[in-house]
């Protein structure tokens, strides 16, 4: 079945460091990927997305890399700040039929940024 998983459940970094959060997916039909940030007591917050026809996309302080060969996704956060501390989820969506609206989430990585 479809699944999206994360290699590292927790990640601790110092303020100012760069952070890399990894994600593996198993559905080869997935063609759209999103990274979300979820703070305690809040809903997931959209960070950045990427489609399968791209291998890299950059936002403000964030970069998402997609390697379809090994079904791997990563989120890079530059100059990590204490406000970046949260749980980060990758989510994937498979093309076609009624699947467009269905995001499949991984379990999440807890990022802790120490001042």
């Amino acid at each position, binding site marked *: 079945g479809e699944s*999206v998983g994360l290699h590292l459940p927790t990640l601790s970094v110092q303020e100012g460091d760069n952070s890399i959060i990894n994600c593996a997916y198993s559905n080869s039909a997935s063609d759209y990927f999103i990274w979300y940030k979820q703070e305690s007591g809040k*809903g997931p917050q*959209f960070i950045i997305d990427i*489609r399968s026809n791209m291998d890299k996309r950059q936002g403000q302080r964030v970069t998402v890399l997609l390697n379809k060969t090994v079904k791997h996704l990563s989120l890079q956060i530059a100059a990590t700040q204490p406000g970046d501390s949260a749980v980060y989820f990758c989510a994937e969506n498979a093309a076609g039929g*009624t699947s*467009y*609206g*269905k995001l499949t989430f991984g379990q*999440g990585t807890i990022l802790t940024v120490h001042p």
Partner: protein
Amino acid sequence: DAGVTQSPTHLIKTRGQQVTLRCSPISGHKSVSWYQQVLGQGPQFIFQYYEKEERGRGNFPDRFSARQFPNYSSELNVNALLLGDSALYLCASSLWSGAFSYEQYFGPGTRLTVT
């Protein structure tokens, strides 16, 4: 601009009871999806509605139902509540039109506790 809104924020119900959760999407968004997030896990897809029609359904029992109204707001109903239904219920809205995947924006969620 107002984001996705959900009501109520918190809810406590007894086993066997029924519950209705409400969601208002971002203005202009015609697609609403519902997710269940159990503590410590990623959100699980329940339903997607677009233009008042169900367009996707996750692996949830028939006790779960939903509908979308002409103003694109949505309700999620859960009958015969079980202890295992205790979770954060998230609503996400999207510009999804049926052709491509689009980013989904989440509301703050409704925390349901079943005792």
